[in-house]
């Protein structure tokens, strides 16, 4: 154990996810019978706030509104369609078994738990698999143009980490198609006058009164107005925090503020250190680059990954003869080859880079080569499958993947961590529900490709609309808190004070400077591989950086206007707090699991070495107490349906 771990964190009592017990296959159905219902005429009497209009938020808001609840939806974007879900490329999984390739709800469930390296709740993962089927039905009915076979049925393909074909897709724009359909359902409710939508409005705090979530404080991004909104329940569907790394595959404005501020009000934050690095990102071209571009992992279905056998080989790829290439994924993982799961592929790539075999001008990538596939299947087929991805690559790099291999590298992409929730999607603050990437369940320590569009959709369309009413039902006859209530006013005051504080530092560096520095620290210390000493150093460096931020940040302009610097400064301030917890969680978890790879804990073959005896659990962090130490609580995980086993993709 790192000597000063106890000075850095405290350990609190266990926590439990309240998942019902019994046969997993019947759990959700039985549980639905136990969930309380609200009579249709009474539903108008309840107000629910939904923050976020991505797949999770749009689904929850539209469905709750259809059911008859008063819904107010919020997004900082200018339109609901722009939520980051729109950028997902590859596809969405479902256990439809349309291909007669042995797929089933059970197999999908097992793949998810195993892919997550046994760090997810079995009951939640099972429900994900079970409801996947309905998501495809629902999205198809909405007019999502999924790829079709000639016979008119829906086509599927296989995706990283599995051996069946269960990924539904719409060319390389699956997220876009699902997201646009979801926001259309949301707007349909707005048009019908049943739902109120606030665009360009950012949630800056959660209002908690007598231990319950009763509202939020928002800032109108155009006028700068700050105001409270109260309700019977609050749903956060605000996406993931991968942008903590600054250069990530996420959209520029994705941020952690909504969930982080809820955490500061007491909501437990689960597994902050579980970050997935995507193996098919584009390598950075230089240090001024503003983000990492993702190339869909579906490319690995037909592309072969390789590096030169000799370190420091600077020949152009087409001049390196076949026998001097190392197709290392095919060599190391013969049964999965180029489709090995993301964490494994990213780590394998990092090992090649560390061995000096990186390619490209900055020697920071590996090749993804389509020449065999083009020769075998013809250019037309490859065009049908990936034309927009190839165009994206050409635009971004000016290089032509038809004639020379693409270059790819691991990039921060998805966070499995998020606010802790119980089986009902409710956080540790009653009345605060969380869905989509903002929450933590389902994916354990590593997410399977195409499982996240699914989890966001499942939460939004098929879980929260059942569980939120269960919380509302007993509150019949109560009103949302009045705006002049002292707890509401106190939260509004806190938000104003923070904005004033940011505006009045009067330092010399813009928020992006600190964000980039934080990103570099996280990449170095809480990256693809971690180790105890480096994590401790990283945590300290992040703390120092945060102090420097509050001494030296410069925010030009004032708060009563559209001020993007101010928006960024607030988000960076939260990332700087979050980043330290990411490092602390990684330091605390003395094992390797999935994407969390501690170099001290590996097998002889260099694979992640779990410690099931001590760490078969979810870490759920409470905010720091008066002594400044965050408190780690644990939810024990038990595996009844599927035996704990070491993952092997050999």
């Amino acid at each position, binding site marked *: 154990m790192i000597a000063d771990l106890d000075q850095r964190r405290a350990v609190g009592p266990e926590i439990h996810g309240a998942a019902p017990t019994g046969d997993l296959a019947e759990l959700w159905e039985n549980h639905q019978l136990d969930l309380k219902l609200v009579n249709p005429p009474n539903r108008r009497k309840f107000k629910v706030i939904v923050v976020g209009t991505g797949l999770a938020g749009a689904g929850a808001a539209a469905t709750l509104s259809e059911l008859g609840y008063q819904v107010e939806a919020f997004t900082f974007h*200018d339109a609901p369609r722009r939520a980051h879900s729109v950028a997902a490329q590859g596809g969405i999984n479902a256990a439809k078994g*349309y291909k007669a390739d042995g797929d089933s709800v059970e197999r999908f469930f097992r793949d998810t738990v195993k892919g997550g390296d046994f760090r997810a709740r079995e009951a939640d993962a099972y429900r994900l698999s079970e409801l996947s089927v309905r998501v495809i039905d629902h999205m198809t009915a909405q*007019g999502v*143009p999924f790829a*079709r076979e000639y016979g008119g049925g829906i086509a599927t393909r296989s995706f990283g980490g599995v051996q069946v074909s269960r990924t539904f897709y719409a060319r390389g724009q699956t997220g876009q198609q699902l997201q646009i359909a979801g926001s259309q359902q949301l707007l349909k409710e707005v048009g019908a006058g049943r739902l109120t939508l606030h*665009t360009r409005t950012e949630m800056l705090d959660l209002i908690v009164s007598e231990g319950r979530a009763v509202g939020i404080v928002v800032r109108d991004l155009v006028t700068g107005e700050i105001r409270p909104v109260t309700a019977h329940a609050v749903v956060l569907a605000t996406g993931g925090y991968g942008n903590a790394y600054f250069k990530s595959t996420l959209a520029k404005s994705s941020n952690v503020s909504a969930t982080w501020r809820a955490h500061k009000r007491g909501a437990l934050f689960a597994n902050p250190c579980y970050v997935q690095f995507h193996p098919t990102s584009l390598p950075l071209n230089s240090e001024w680059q*503003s983000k990492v571009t993702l190339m869909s992992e579906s490319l690995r279905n037909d592309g072969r990954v390789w590096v030169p056998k000799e370190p420091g080989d600077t020949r152009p790829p087409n001049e390196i003869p076949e026998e001097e290439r190392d197709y290392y994924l095919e060599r190391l993982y013969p049964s999965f080859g180029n489709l090995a799961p993301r964490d494994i592929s990213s780590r394998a790539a990092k090992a090649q880079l560390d061995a000096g075999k990186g390619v490209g001008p900055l020697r920071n990538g590996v090749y993804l080569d389509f020449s065999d596939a083009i020769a075998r299947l013809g250019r037309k087929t490859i065009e049908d499958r990936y034309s927009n991805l190839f165009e994206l690559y050409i635009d971004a790099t000016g290089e032509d993947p038809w004639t020379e291999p693409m270059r790819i590298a691991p990039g921060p992409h998805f966070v499995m961590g998020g606010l802790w929730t119980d089986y009902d999607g409710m956080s540790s603050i009653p009345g605060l529900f969380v869905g989509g990437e903002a929450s933590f369940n389902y994916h354990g320590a590593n997410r399977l490709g195409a499982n996240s569009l699914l989890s966001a959709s499942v939460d939004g369309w098929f879980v929260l609309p059942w569980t939120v009413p269960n919380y509302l039902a007993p509150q019949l006859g109560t009103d949302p808190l009045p705006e002049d209530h002292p707890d509401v006013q106190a939260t509004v005051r806190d938000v104003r004070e923070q904005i004033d504080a940011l505006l009045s530092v009067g330092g010399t560096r813009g928020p992006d400077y600190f964000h980039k520095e934080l990103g570099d620290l996280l990449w170095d210390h809480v990256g693809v591989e971690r180790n105890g000493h480096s994590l401790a150093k990283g945590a300290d460096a992040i703390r120092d950086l945060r102090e420097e931020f509050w001494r030296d940040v410069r925010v030009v*302009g004032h708060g009563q206007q559209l001020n993007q610097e101010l928006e960024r400064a607030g988000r960076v301030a939260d990332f700087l707090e979050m980043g330290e917890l990411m490092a602390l969680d990684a330091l605390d978890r003395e094992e390797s699991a999935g994407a969390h790879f501690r170099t001290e804990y590996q097998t002889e073959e260099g694979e992640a070495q779990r410690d099931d005896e001590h760490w078969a659990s979810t870490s759920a962090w409470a905010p720091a107490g008066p002594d400044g130490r965050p408190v780690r609580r644990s939810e024990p995980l038990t595996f009844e349906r599927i035996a704990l086993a070491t993952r092997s993709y050999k």
Partner: protein
Amino acid sequence: MDLTLRIWRQPRHDTPGDFVSYQVTGVPEEASFLEMLDLLNEQLSERGEEPVVFESDCREGICGTCGLMIDGRPHGPWGNTATCQLHMRAYADGDEITIEPWRATGFPVIKDLAVDRSAFDRIIEAGGYISTPTGAAPDANLIPVDKATADRAFEAAACIGCGACVAACPNGAAQLFAGAKVAQLNMLPQGQPERYQRAANVVDTMEAFFGSCTNHGECQAACPKDISIDFIAWLNRDYRKAKLSGRQAG
């Protein structure tokens, strides 16, 4: 490279705006156009001047947030790319570039280069959806869609809602955006029950915000997703049928 930028600055929607010239220095050729503007903003902010407001998010050409009029062309010189995908290798040292917001009555300027495109959402609210309550859908494969139709629907659905079509149109019309949405839904079997109602409601709402289409075709040329003007014909045909059969917007 060093560049001269003429940028539209406008503090608020209700105050007048004007072009301001800026020198931006040390722009790497590999940078994207928006990274070049990031650099400018960094240089402005260092001097204590207010950075230029421009919007972007995914920076991968898919969210539709970005969108600038660059030397009079929506999304700049490349064609079939969104502003965020334009790279500085399109320019040379010493170039002067004029950057404006979208200009259209339907898209009021909010500040500098940011405009309000919420009228697009009003169009969707009016009919850009298929009514399908959650939980009511049959098995997805019970609704076969032939591959050609599915592919065509996808092409219409690829619209990113950026608004370049409106900005390019001399009349500020939104036919390409609306046509693409209506065509996507109206050609699929799932969209048939609401087909004519949808066309009528979408067109009536569109006309309340945007100018009328006189077939200039500038929209398709400006569209980063190469949405075809053939979809406008779909919209017109279904709209005419709707009106002939006496379906009222509602």
